[in-house]
């Protein structure tokens, strides 16, 4: 019998979403701050509840459609935290630039729900429908700034290409369903492990599926929407796109690959390698010539997606043939931990960067790199956090990005992908140029006016939290790694 109580966290989140929508009717316009406060408090409550309630529980619902395990627990908590951070970072932006606050927050919360479901789904249809829920939320949120033509354009592009990608993804699912007869990850692994050769129909299935997922994580050549949409979306939503949707998709992909596609990985590896190489090269290269900061970070996040893809392609070691053996997957756990760590580190840094951008945008009304000039003087704390996030993204110590990159690359090179790692490291050198360019404008260029930027308590608090998180993970990642190892172990236990 399915123990539906295990879904309590999700149910609470749904309830929270609806209650916000409802409460919105009853509060006057000038009291809208109640909404985010309520949302954050509830999310915190749900987070604590989830941690207490789900820890140590391992179960599957409906024969594996949803999996409750350490892995999903880790990501659920991460997404709940992310939801909280996104809401906090949205408060000021939404207040100033957007109407329909209730809808905004509730949709945001629904996307959190969708992400939670993605991380725990163990089946393609469930994965697809929660992916769509996330996408729909994002379509709306991207276009939320209704009177901003960029936002409209971003929304249009996003939804049309999103629909195209979901058509492609669905075609892939249909092929897999038809040729394997199942959409369950576990069963797929069994079937794939038993069939000796793989047929063209399945190739289409998996590749179209990967194409659809690749669209979400902005992997080359499915990345082209990303810069435009990142640029046009309201800044907190850009952060969501860059962090939330990407992390959730990777959470899904990881579970899919490890519990479903492991037998196929030797064959799939080459495609992933090509995609990874293209993604990190192109993303970092194109970021060199950007002048809009959000667009720049969009390309940078494409580059980071490339690093994560590098991790995916290193799930099995290269130069091995034949069936599973010990050496073949001996380092898989290492790589998976690396991917998760990098996702987290990258997510935190990116959140900090986008938060800084949205604060600056609020004050200056511009998002071009040139408009960052003199921020270092105007707001030392803000610029320190911005600089830290930029360093972290560039992968320099003492920030989180360094250890995560190192860990990921070490794992990949242990799997024999040292050449791909070399490309990755070289692209990260290229990336340093544009990151430094940001720093140049922040600290070195002088601004025309000397108007101070005052941080609100909320922004200050959130920035400090992110800053400390970046540094803490950077110099003492052991606690986080512990949690990640638990998550990883849960994943491989299912294998």
């Amino acid at each position, binding site marked *: 019998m399915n123990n539906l109580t295990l879904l309590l966290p999700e149910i609470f989140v749904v309830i929270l979403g609806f209650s916000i929508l409802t409460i919105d009717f009853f509060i006057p316009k000038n009291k809208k701050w109640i909404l985010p406060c309520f949302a954050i408090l509830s999310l915190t409550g749900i987070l604590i509840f989830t941690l207490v309630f789900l820890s140590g529980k391992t179960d599957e619902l*409906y024969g594996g459609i949803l999996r409750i395990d350490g892995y999903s627990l880790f990501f659920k908590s991460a997404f709940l935290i992310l939801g909280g951070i996104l809401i906090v970072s949205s408060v000021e932006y939404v207040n100033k630039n957007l109407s329909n606050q209730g*809808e905004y927050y509730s949709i945001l919360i629904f996307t959190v729900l969708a992400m939670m479901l993605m991380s725990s789904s163990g089946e393609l249809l*469930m994965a697809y429908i929660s992916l769509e829920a996330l996408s729909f939320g994002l379509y709306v949120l991207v276009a939320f700034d209704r009177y901003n033509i960029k936002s409209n354009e971003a929304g249009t592009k996003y939804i049309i290409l999103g629909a195209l990608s979901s058509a492609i993804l669905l075609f892939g699912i249909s092929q897999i369903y038809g*040729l394997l007869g199942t959409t369950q990850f576990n069963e797929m692994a069994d079937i794939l492990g038993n069939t000796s050769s793989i047929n063209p*129909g399945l190739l289409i299935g998996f590749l179209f599926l990967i194409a659809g997922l690749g669209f979400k994580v902005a992997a080359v050549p499915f990345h082209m929407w990303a810069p435009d949409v990142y640029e046009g979306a309201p800044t907190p939503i850009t952060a969501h796109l860059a962090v939330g949707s990407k992390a959730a998709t990777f959470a899904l992909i990881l579970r899919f690959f490890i519990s479903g596609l492991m037998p196929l990985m030797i064959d799939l590896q080459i495609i992933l390698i090509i995609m990874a190489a293209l993604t990190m090269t192109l993303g970092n290269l194109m970021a060199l010539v950007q002048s809009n900061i959000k667009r720049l970070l969009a390309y940078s996040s494409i580059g980071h997606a490339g690093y994560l893809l590098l991790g995916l392609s290193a799930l099995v070691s290269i130069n091995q043939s034949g069936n599973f053996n010990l050496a073949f997957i001996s380092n898989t756990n290492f790589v998976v931990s690396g991917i998760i760590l990098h996702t987290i580190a990258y997510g935190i840094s990116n959140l900090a960067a986008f938060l800084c951008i949205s604060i600056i945008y609020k004050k200056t009304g511009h998002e071009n790199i040139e408009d960052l000039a003199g921020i270092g003087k105007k707001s030392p704390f803000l610029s320190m956090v911005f600089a830290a996030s930029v360093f972290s993204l560039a992968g320099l110590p003492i920030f989180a990005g360094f250890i995560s990159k190192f860990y990921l690359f070490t794992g990949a090179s242990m799997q024999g992908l040292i050449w791909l790692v070399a490309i990755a490291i070289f692209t990260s050198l290229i990336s340093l140029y544009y990151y430094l360019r940001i720093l140049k404008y922040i600290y070195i260029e002088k601004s025309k006016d000397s108007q101070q930027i005052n941080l609100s308590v909320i922004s200050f608090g959130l920035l400090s939290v992110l800053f400390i998180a970046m540094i803490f993970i950077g110099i003492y990642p052991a606690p986080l790694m512990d949690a990640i190892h638990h998550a990883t172990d849960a994943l491989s236990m299912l294998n």
Partner: protein
Amino acid sequence: MTSLVFFYLASVIILGGGLTVILSSNIIYAALGLMASLIGVAGIFILSFAPFLALVQILIYGGAIVIVIIFALMLTKLEDFRTLSDHKHWPIALIASLVTLGTIIAAAFYTPTNLVSRRGVDFDKIAHELFSQWAIPFEVASLVLLIALMGGVIMVRKTNSRDDK
């Protein structure tokens, strides 16, 4: 054999409708072509012993979607309805679609399958599956619809709030 005739008939309708959608220079024709194509798909469903799906197909697509599209068309510029043109890059589009087509068809021929003869699925079974095994995705789908609804409202409604300048 009869079924094959019907299948071809449906195929002709579907593909013809599809071609109208992508080739017609009049948008109303295109919308009608879409409708024809969708109804053709409903025919395929009937051939596959899935009358419920056919019904859903006609109701949702034929009844709702095409109407929505036509409404949407009415809300936008009417002038260029009859002068639709394609991109000047359409050959690339053609190549892309032909490559995809080639891949899919080649795969269809090269893929060994383990088949039985055509048979349907009981309506009861579908209903049972949908509301027991797939209850949660179903709930999530409702969430998707809700979000779409909210999104649609937000996008289109006029508000009196301060941003309506």
